[in-house]
């Protein structure tokens, strides 16, 4: 059984196919049709709902997610808010009122999703800031308005004239959710099972019992098997309720990240050490995806175009793998073995990610290139960590996504940089060396030629960035 708050009402589900998405549950089981299906792949945001949960510091945390790619079991212990829940007695929420007054809806089909993203933004930010608004709404597509009135609404909803009626007392919600979270969650229906272990040890034991189970570690990719391939998964094991998989520890040597930590939750600590990651993290999926997707999931699915793996490769990260009670540490360098294949054995999973602390002398850059700036999959993603002695490169770790069947380091390129001054001549040699490292494919995102050229040009950008501010190098600094 799982239990969650549907707005303020306690809602229990027992007998349901755990392959059911939150969107289908809302629309087909509850007849709550305000939440729309636009793509069923997490790419348009029409299905955006908000979940509230109690954070580690006992605060209610409001997060926008894509209902279309969220398995129903993930709701356990959380509060689910949909577009139907915002207006009370005909009194619109400021996000809704501002959308009306600013002419933020035309056909109206994307509107509930926008309203929920705006609502989450409203709960998380005291003031309107354009950059933060763009970040919150980058995963919601509108085909009618051109977005300007929606941006206006995102500012106007902070107008004091639209002061919100207080939500239901947060204290009660916090207490209720905390109590719900104590109860273990599981689901069965249509001969499918769903487990939500509460610790890594419990997960390890379950996974050994069910070695064919699929891990739900955000499910932003896994769910596509349900909604696009129409597959059914017999056993699902959710990683996100294991408290020792969702924490981050800072040690003197490294950042020690639980595999089920979401991008959103890891961002503050990552950015603290590597502020240069800001743009990449902002462009990684959408807000909804970052709220749901986990770093462990991004590594585990071994996609050649995942954005975190190149970064973690450049940062010399390693992963702690666990099988039953056995643990082993594997450098990320050797974790990926082929297209969507890893060294993970049966019943083995990623428990933690270790990222060594930054050296003061490290020149670090991470660049993502895609057809569209917001919410797009990388054509090429490059991450560069150069240890510098003045202008001289003492060592280099360079990794790319989108250039091979796995995210991979560019060893020839690294060799061409090592012990050289970071000059145009050195970079030219490093660019030439890339041809030894990679032989990318052509697909609908880009041709092989473009990928090679851009991979090289990112090295040029890296060199230029040593002396030029980012505003003179990256169009993303204009928005």
């Amino acid at each position, binding site marked *: 059984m799982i239990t969650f708050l549907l707005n303020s009402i306690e809602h229990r589900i027992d007998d349901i196919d755990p392959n059911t998405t939150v969107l289908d549950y809302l629309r087909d089981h509850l007849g709550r049709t305000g939440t729309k299906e636009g793509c069923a792949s997490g790419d348009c945001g029409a299905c955006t709902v908000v979940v509230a949960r109690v954070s580690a510091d006992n605060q209610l945390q409001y997060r926008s997610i894509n209902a279309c790619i969220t398995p129903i079991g993930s709701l356990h212990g959380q509060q689910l808010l949909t577009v139907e829940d915002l207006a009370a007695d*005909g009194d619109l929420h400021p996000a809704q*009122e501002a959308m009306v007054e600013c002419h933020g809806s*035309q056909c109206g*089909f994307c509107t*509930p999703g926008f309203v929920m993203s705006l609502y989450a933004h409203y709960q998380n930010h005291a003031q309107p800031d354009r950059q933060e608004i763009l970040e919150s709404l980058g995963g919601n597509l509108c*085909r009618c308005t*051109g977005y300007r009135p929606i*941006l206006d609404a995102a500012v106007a909803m902070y107008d004091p004239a639209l002061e919100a009626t207080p939500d239901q007392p947060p204290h009660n919600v916090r207490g209720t959710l905390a109590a719900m979270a104590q109860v273990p969650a599981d689901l069965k229906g249509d001969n499918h099972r769903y487990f939500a272990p509460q610790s890594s040890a419990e997960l390890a034991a379950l996974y050994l019992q069910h070695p064919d189970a699929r891990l739900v570690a955000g499910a932003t990719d896994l769910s596509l098997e349900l909604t696009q391939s129409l597959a059914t998964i017999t056993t699902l094991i959710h990683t996100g309720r294991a408290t020792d998989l969702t924490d981050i520890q800072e040690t003197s040597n490294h950042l020690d990240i639980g595999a089920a930590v979401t991008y959103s939750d890891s961002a503050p600590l990552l950015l603290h050490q590597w502020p240069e990651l800001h743009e990449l993290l902002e462009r990684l999926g959408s807000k909804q995806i970052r709220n749901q997707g986990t770093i462990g999931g991004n590594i585990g699915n071994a996609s050649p175009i995942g954005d975190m793996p190149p970064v973690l490769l450049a940062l010399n990260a390693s992963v702690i793998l666990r099988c039953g009670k056995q643990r082993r540490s594997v450098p990320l360098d050797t974790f990926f073995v082929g297209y969507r294949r890893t060294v993970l054995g049966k019943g083995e999973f990623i428990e933690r990610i270790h990222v060594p602390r930054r050296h003061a002398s490290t020149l670090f850059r991470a660049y993502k290139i895609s057809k569209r700036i917001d919410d797009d999959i990388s054509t090429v993603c490059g991450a560069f960590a150069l240890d510098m002695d003045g202008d001289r490169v003492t060592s280099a770790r360079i990794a790319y996504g989108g250039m091979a069947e796995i995210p991979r380091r560019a060893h020839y390129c690294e060799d061409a940089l090592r012990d050289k001054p970071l000059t145009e001549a050195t970079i030219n040699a490093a660019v030439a060396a890339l041809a030894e490292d990679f032989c990318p494919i052509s697909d609908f995102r880009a041709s092989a030629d473009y990928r090679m050229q*851009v991979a090289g040009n990112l090295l040029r950008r890296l060199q230029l960035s040593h002396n030029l501010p980012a505003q003179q190098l990256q169009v993303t600094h204009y928005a």
Partner: protein
Amino acid sequence: MRRLPQARNSRAAAGLAGHPLRHESAVGHVTGQASYVDDRRGPADTLYAYPGLSSIARGNISSMDLSAVQCAPGVVDVITSNDIPGHRDIGAVFPGDPLLADGEVLFYGQVLFVVVANSQLAARRAARLAQVEYAPIDSHLDVEEALAEAYFVRPTHRQSRGDLDRAQAAADKQLTGEFHSGGQEQMYLEGQAAMAVPQDDGGMLVYASTQHPSEGQKLVAEVLNLPMSKVTVDVRRMGGAFGGKETNANQWSCIAALAAHRSGRSVKLRLARADDFAATGKRHPFFSRYQVAFDNDGTIKGLDLELAGNCGMSPDLSDAIVDRAMFHADNCYFLPAADIRGHRVRTDTVSHTAFRGFGGPQGMLAMENIIEQVATATGLDPLDVRKRNFYSAEDGRDTTHYGQKIEQHIIGPLVERLENTANYRARRQEISAFNAQSPVLKRGLALTPVKFGISFTVQHLNQAGALLHVYTDGSIQLNHGGTEMGQGLYTKVAQIVASELQVDMSRITCTSTRTDKVPNTSPTAASSGSDLNGMAARDAARKIKSRLTTFAAGHFGVSESEVVFEQGEVKAGQESISFADLAQLAYLQRISLSATGFYKTPKIHYNRDMANGRPFFYYAYGAAVSEVVVDTLTGEYRLLQADICQDVGQSLNPALDIGQIEGGFIQGMGWLTSEELIWGEDGRLQTAGPASYKIPAISDTPATLNVELLPDSPNTEATIFHSKAVGEPPLMLGISVWAAIRDAIGSLADHRASPALNAPATPERVLLACADMQKFMERQT
């Protein structure tokens, strides 16, 4: 309900035409209460239909084993072409679009059969279990190859005037070239959907998401072999359409109706996004070849232009679409001598169809590319080349290549105004200075104009009907043939009726567009929605007003000229009575309070054999200035600022008009930048969903977006309140973004070489063009 302070405006509250009233469904949109087809609850025994799609581009079906489909859990019925009681072809204008494949496959993603099951998921799963064997036939997927073979869906049309040979011989310079523009997926957020409900008289009620309910009605009737009177199509609203729910909505209505007809149960059909991409048509990709003759001052003397529309596998609406491309190949420019051929090229892909602009954007873009090339060749600012060639009242430079005289010379002053308000010249200087000192990022600027012809070029479509009821409490129900797809048509037409009867908007209820209320309607397309339906609704309102006036004059003993409708009241000489009381009084005196209205557009005609006439009632104009920054290392770019001036005549609703302008502009930008359709060699669309097909997202909207409605410019034609259509024209303002990107690239060669930049200008194409410029500069040194 809380309000923003600026909305407390009594004029707005009155909601008469001209006021920026909110969309009639705005509150429904933001609360999730506004209902779309798939939100509609069917009876408990509702069934779900889902199509099985082909997986080759072209060939014959050697065998189709559907036994596994039939046996799949939840399956109730499996339907193939042989099960269709009536017509099997649903081609809207010309035949060529089978409802279900009939022995042969015409494109990858064609509907072969239909599964009907007790859930959407069961139907979708079952549809994948078919065992189909094909005998493939060589397919045509390349438009240039197909053009070379004259593989056409319809014959070529030609428009020409003047002595092109002489013009070419006399001109200072000539240029030849080729240009490609890509297609565009409509990507309405609400996918194709229909729900059919069998009626007890053997008829069918279809809730559809369609821009053309009457065509849906006709085709459902033909497929089911029923008289049209037994079929009703109901459309309350669409979650976006953009042309993609004109002919392309019919198939899903017909399939749902067929399944409902066979089972006697309600049937819903909703396409999953990837299948919607695969099975429905898009904007036509175009290929063009040109030879342009011009003088050193940029004056165009003659144009030879071949426009080849890639129509896909059937004619659908392609004849009219390629015609419209030809009608817009001049854009705002006088062509003293011209020879324009429009080819309707067949390729073995999904049949391309209507998309906002309907060929106009493709023709116009081909011309704007030519203007850019002329600018580089003459060393002039492209804006000066544009202005040099504008239609004008002087020297007889006022007739299009198809013989329509330009009567309102708006583009010159409009562009002059925008040039000043957007500070074009100063920014041009500033950008040159920036580019000189910026090694990687380059900025670009462009001002492009738009002239768009308003009217269906198929004459009979230029008609509309309306139905208006006044009830005895003074409340009013309004119905018309136009459909609501987000553009605010219901709001505008209600404002027109409110203005005519001088009543508050809150009195008026717009009901869903239904073929049983207003028959034989035209599609809501060609930007004509408010022009046509607004006039028809006003006609109905005037009929009722006239009856009430006559009645009130008699009742109060005054002359009819003394009866005045004003702010919810009706004044008759010294007497005054509320509109509601008058309605009640009139009812008691047996005055009819219901009326139909009708309108047909005057003046228009086009002789296709002579390629001459006046196809358009009037033209709508606009222009945009876009400024971009381009990364010459990666090809990425950003739109920094856009300034737009659009001629909407006397605006019916400035808020809705600005919404159309901004939305159209960004959509046009998407067409020319990030939206790229890629078909594989097997004919399969590889960018079949928003994960791979990228429409503009929120940060693509520039930080500065200034939109002005051209002031004091009422339509000189007698349109509804002298307004102008606004649906499609702004899409072409997006051409300025493409031109600005091209300008930034050209700066790499000091604008001495002309970047070849096919559309869409993806980062990859931009980087390629940058490399060409860099090579040019290397050759110079």
